[in-house]
């Protein structure tokens, strides 16, 4: 078995969430690595869209920004933000969106705006960007972030982007067309959402991580099935291709393997 880092494990999990032929909205960082890996493994017909305006990208160099010039290279179209987040995303034409989060709650609602009180925040995070738009309208959402107990909170400091809101039916009531979060990928485990209650549920733990550890590192009542499988490890092929996508280790890190 090839050695791999927990960051690589996350990217591979992200990749596996992409189905062939899907239209994928990916921000920079691990999500885009996951989407690109999917394209060179099991999902060659996935179409990647970046919110700055590039559609159906075939860039060969890794981008730092969702508006990076690298993304224009061999794109099918290079338009604008109303194209990508409006006509495509709000138009209901995107299957899968990747998002990060500083906090999520047990319904997968997302905070990327503030830590602390709204009136006097401790930290100003990046804000919504296109996150709220993606969370509102993408067919389904995959969340990716490194695991820390403080990120899995009972009550968000600020609700930036809608998950399943207050549970079943609450998205529909507001007319949000997207399906909401379907998967959470951390460096320790994967979580999905219980169909009936729309509450978050442990799906698999990465090799070496215990269910107990996860339970202790989530600040709400996580649904834990009787049997929790171990996440399949990255294959040698996945790792090789993944590393070739980020040869300088911009997102995967340098030499930490």
């Amino acid at each position, binding site marked *: 078995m090839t050695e791999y880092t927990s960051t690589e494990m996350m990217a591979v999990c992200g990749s596996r969430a992409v189905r062939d032929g899907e239209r994928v909205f990916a921000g*920079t*960082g691990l999500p885009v690595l996951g989407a690109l890996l999917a394209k060179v493994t099991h999902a060659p017909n996935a179409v990647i869209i970046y*919110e*700055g*305006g*590039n559609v159906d990208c075939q860039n060969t*160099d890794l981008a*730092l*920004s*969702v*508006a*990076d*010039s*690298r*993304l*224009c*290279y061999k794109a099918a179209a*290079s*338009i*604008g*933000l*109303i194209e990508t*987040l*409006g006509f495509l*995303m*709000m138009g209901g034409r995107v299957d899968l969106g990747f998002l990060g989060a500083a906090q999520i709650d047990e319904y997968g609602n997302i905070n990327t*705006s503030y830590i602390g009180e*709204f009136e*006097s*925040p*401790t*930290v*100003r*995070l*990046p*804000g*919504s*960007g*296109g*996150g*709220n*738009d993606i969370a*509102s*309208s993408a067919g389904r959402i995959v969340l990716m972030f490194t695991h820390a107990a403080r990120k899995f909170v009972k009550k968000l400091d*600020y*609700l*930036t*982007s*809608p998950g399943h*809101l207050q549970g079943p039916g*609450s*998205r529909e009531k*507001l*007319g*949000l*067309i997207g399906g909401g979060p379907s998967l959470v990928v951390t460096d320790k485990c994967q979580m999905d959402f219980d169909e009936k209650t729309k509450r978050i549920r442990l799906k698999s733990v990465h090799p070496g991580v215990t269910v107990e550890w996860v339970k202790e590192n989530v600040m709400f009542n996580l649904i834990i099935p009787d049997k929790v499988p171990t996440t399949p490890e990255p294959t040698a092929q996945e790792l090789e291709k993944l590393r070739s996508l980020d040869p300088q280790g*911009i*997102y995967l890190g340098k030499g930490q393997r």
Partner: protein
Amino acid sequence: MPEPVVEDKRISLKEVTKKIPNGAHIAWGGFGYQRPPEAFAMELIRQKKRGLRIYTCGSEHDLDILVGAEVCLEFEVAFFAIEALGLAPNLRRRTKEGKVRFEDYSNLSMALRFLGGALNVPFMPIRHLLGSDMLTKARLRKDKAKVIDCPFTGKPIALLPSVQADFGVICAQRVDPEGNTQIFGIKGEDNEIARCAKTTIVFAEEIISNEEIRRNPDLTMIPGLYVDYVVEVPFGSWPMQVYGYYDYDLPHLQMYVQQCRTEEGWQEYLEDWILGVGSHEGLLKKIGEKRLKALRADKVRGY
């Protein structure tokens, strides 16, 4: 019979910046690493402007230096960080000091607000923001957004107030003296920004002739009718990038994010890279021909 006059809207970076009064509201172009008005931000700092309010989807180093220098502390904005590199360091510090005030929107919300301003209608409808704290938690505006029951469907829909700022500022690749503007690569929300402002300023890498513009009207993204001032500023988005002209200066950005974590580091950066150089020309001299050449884009790839 009078002869037609080719209107010449060209002006220098220094002069155009003088036209921005303290307290002006500015719709701010560029998206992420692409074509932000960096040279303009630096000149606003040199001229010690105060009390600006900026409207934009997302910007990064350009906004962060304005926050550091306390030129602009009010934002109606969707995204503020240095993508891939981390949080914006001055923003982080000034927020802790309680100095910065945000009105938070999503990227599409801001783009639609500019579109509504360009169309001169008071609002634009959006399906998003519903269920989010962005809809209800406000700081700068009484009328941040309204939710109505759609008179056609009966379902809730959010209405966003249109933006018609005092100034619209964008960076483009090529423009003629009348303001006809060509933008290549992604447009972000710049087409809408250029059309929604009371006064629109185009900074361009290159000035081309009106004849060249008229040779290919399909390439004109912003007709000169919307444009009040044209400013030629080569490398006007450095340390960020302009598709087809130059790439971002990654080592500089990494240095920035690292150094400006402290107020001392920021003050040093401010002196070294903005005030000390005295002008955009001074800045380019400091960066140096060799480095600029290395950043220049391969014409086929565009970066």
